[in-house]
């Protein structure tokens, strides 16, 4: 009897653990389920002209890339286009993007044996888990959207995507007349932000997202504010004037979700670029020109150029804590995510909030009863910030982290990927990265700026496109490059600091060993002998 009980206990416990795993696997997969659209409205532009397929050549493999030639692949290319996914209009989304459908149809006309199959039923909230599961099972779609930081970081294992660098550096894009090297079609200041430790490039990137302060023009007028603030001193003045009129000046998403975490990394760029810009030569030990590879960031932490215990590293936290005086009293809440803050703005509970260029569409849909505008977030200034330098970080508030980020899962992640299919996927990526198609697709959505060289931006966004030629610096202090483990700890510690639970010194003590561990991991995983770059 006793033995039977023992067995029962063991079985019961096994079932419990199993059910726990089952619970984890079930996850939260609220499906946004975009449906396939048959619409093919040409949004004022037409897709790129016929390809020149005179190059000939064999179908390539990752080790020995060859120029694109006649495609031998026949069949579907399954493709997830994220925000650009062509969908049917709905009440909530009356004007969805359709341009990708138009481009796909033009491509299919050129290659009648290939069909671009926009995949549906992709989970919105837990996309990375979904894709990782697909990759693990070898069932990933042929071309997918993925954030570059997730590809260079820990989220997706290195090797789960095809390294596109060798193809992009050695092949022309046959759909662009006169192009000899595909990679030349991309702004190198943006490409610098995408390269992995060994120079790998896991995606083609064709859009730029900018972040800014969105403000209620009516409230500004009521408070007698006639000019938008350009520095922190002016920004605080604006906050005070709004407060005097009984308004809560602004809010920043501080929820416990990926979106809120992202926002802090966006804001961090403004400060880290300015604080460490003058040290760029010391940081870019491997020769990067405008931003650092993950390996250079890791070396910077090993060398102490980035030092969490250095008061400069977490100084901007202190600055933002002072700003909480102008935020709602419950500024710190797990539910205070981007959507909640947007609602507060639309309902006129706050006068300003921090958001990205994608907010324009959200705000148009919300149709607020007031006029709204956007202005760039103030940058650190030497008169009020002891660590500020003269380096401009204005351009670092945007980046190639939007929706036009497409990667090809490797054969391990997509068992259906043959050499022929890989060639077809590369060809499809080349087709969508012509200036014409890139402009058509990105401008159709209206949230971002197309970045393929020669692309045209929507009216009002031309300045952003022009700024990409400046090759401005962008430093993020390792918040993105050290991986999600470090970012998670960084963000939670930041929350605890804002909530008065720990001091800045305690925060530094907690984060320093984690930064060290993350740096060691990046160096080990890269397989590069970095001894020559390390301080003795």
């Amino acid at each position, binding site marked *: 009897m006793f033995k039977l*009980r023992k067995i029962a*206990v*063991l079985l*019961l*416990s*096994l*079932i*419990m*653990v*199993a*059910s*726990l*795993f*089952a*619970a*984890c696997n079930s*996850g*939260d997969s609220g499906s946004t389920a975009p449906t396939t659209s048959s619409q093919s409205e040409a949004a004022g532009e037409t897709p790129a002209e016929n390809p020149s397929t005179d190059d000939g050549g064999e179908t390539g493999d990752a080790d020995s890339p060859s120029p694109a030639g006649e495609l031998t692949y026949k069949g579907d290319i399954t493709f997830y286009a994220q925000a650009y996914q062509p969908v049917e209009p709905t009440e909530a989304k009356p004007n969805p993007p359709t341009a990708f459908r138009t481009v796909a149809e033009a491509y299919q006309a050129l290659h009648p044996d290939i069909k671009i199959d926009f995949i549906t039923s992709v989970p919105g909230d837990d996309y*990375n*888990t979904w894709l*990782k599961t697909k*990759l*693990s099972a070898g069932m990933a779609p042929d071309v997918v959207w993925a954030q570059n930081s997730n590809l260079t970081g*820990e*989220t*997706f*294992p290195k*090797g*789960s995507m095809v390294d596109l660098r060798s193809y992009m550096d050695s092949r022309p894009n046959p759909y662009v007349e006169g192009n000899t090297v595909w990679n030349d079609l991309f702004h190198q200041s943006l490409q610098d932000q995408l390269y992995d430790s060994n120079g790998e490039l896991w995606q083609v990137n064709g859009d730029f997202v900018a972040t800014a302060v969105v403000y209620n023009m009516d409230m500004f007028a009521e408070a007698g504010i006639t000019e938008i603030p350009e520095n922190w001193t002016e920004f605080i003045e604006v906050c005070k004037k709004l407060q005097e009129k009984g308004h809560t000046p602004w809010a920043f998403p*501080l*929820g*416990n*979700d990926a979106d809120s975490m992202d926002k802090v990394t966006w804001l961090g760029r403004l400060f880290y670029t300015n604080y460490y810009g003058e040290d760029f030569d010391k940081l870019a030990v491997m020769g990067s020109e405008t931003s650092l590879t993950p390996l250079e960031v890791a070396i910077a932490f090993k060398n102490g150029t980035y030092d969490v215990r250095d008061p400069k590293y977490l100084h901007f936290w202190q600055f933002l804590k002072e700003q909480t005086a102008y935020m*709602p*009293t*419950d*500024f*710190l*809440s*797990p*539910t*205070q995510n981007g959507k*909640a803050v947007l609602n*507060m703005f639309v309902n006129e*509970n706050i006068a300003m909030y921090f958001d990205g260029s994608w907010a324009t569409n959200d705000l148009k849909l919300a149709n607020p009863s007031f006029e709204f505008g956007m202005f760039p977030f103030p940058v650190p200034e030497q008169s009020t910030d002891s660590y500020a330098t003269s380096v401009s970080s204005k351009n670092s508030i945007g980046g190639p982290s939007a929706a036009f980020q497409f990667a090809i899962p490797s054969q*391990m*992640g997509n068992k259906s990927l043959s050499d022929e299919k890989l060639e077809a996927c590369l060809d499809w990526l080349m087709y969508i990265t012509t200036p014409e198609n890139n402009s058509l697709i990105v401008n159709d959505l209206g949230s971002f700026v197309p970045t393929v060289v020669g692309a045209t931006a929507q009216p009002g966004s031309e300045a952003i496109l022009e700024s990409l030629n400046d090759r401005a610096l962008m430093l993020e202090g390792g918040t993105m490059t050290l*991986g*999600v*483990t470090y970012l*998670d*700890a960084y963000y*939670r*510690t930041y*929350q*605890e600091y804002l*909530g008065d*639970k720990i001091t800045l010194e305690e925060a530094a003590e907690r984060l320093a060993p984690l930064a060290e561990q993350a740096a060691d991991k990046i160096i080990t995983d890269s397989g590069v002998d970095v001894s020559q770059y390390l301080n003795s």
Partner: protein
Amino acid sequence: MSKSPVAARKPSIKNKNYQILCAVLFLLPTFIVLVSFSYYPAASAIGYSFTRWDGFFDPVFVGLENYARLVKDPIFWLSLRNVLLWSVGSIVVSLIFPYLGAELVFSVKGKRLQYVYRSLLTLPMIVPAVVTIEIWSFIYNPEYGLLNTFFRGIGLEALVQNWLGNSALVIPSLIFIGFPWISGLNFLLFYAGLQNIPGDVLEYAKLDGCGGFRRVFAIDLPLTVSQFKLALILGIINTLQNVTTPLLLTGGGPGYDSYVPGLYMYYEAFTRSNFGYATAIATVMFVMILILTIISMRIQRKDA
């Protein structure tokens, strides 16, 4: 003496074997599913806990490395402390209030009325947990949530709180979810326990003048102890395994204030691709649950 009809119908050995075969065949699909989706994943998880595995490439055996890391991991200990606090609070409310509900329904005169109340109290069980969590997310919203709006409405501004954003309040807020905690499995358990009390015992108690609260303490509680034990162990297991509530409601925040081992395991596996470490966390939880189950069963055996 005539042969009894029962003896005449005694099954032959062939018939008996057929019956066993039938039983095995009927049970087989269940066992296949159970082994495939419950035992195998659990057993393989223990194996993976000794590896470094990203869920994509082949796992690499690292011996006890994950466990050594776990012992020194302050986040794990913090999450354990959080889940213990949450468990204690949750278990107290999940025992007391369903029992009170069961006593109230049991005291209702008239079987039909009892049936109505019982149905009403078990009806919320059909609401999916995710819906409940979303509702509570709205209730706790500091700006427009039901709770703060209620307090503001009745002039108790001092009670308005940032329920999920305040370090000191987030665990109590998680415990409070499900208020008034009456409905559900525990209510049915206690109600069934009360129904099992022999009618003559209750009758004698009534004749002896033992009614109301005295009956509850002198008769009902002692005779439903086994239900309490079962509810207790199920409560511990449920809370230790609860990933969904903190995942959807707080993300473990603010900071690490509602971080629990189940959530840590989820993030390690699906956000950070550390499946080896995640399974080590799961295995430690398995051992903890196993120990608690053994302790509970020993106590029950002693009582028996």
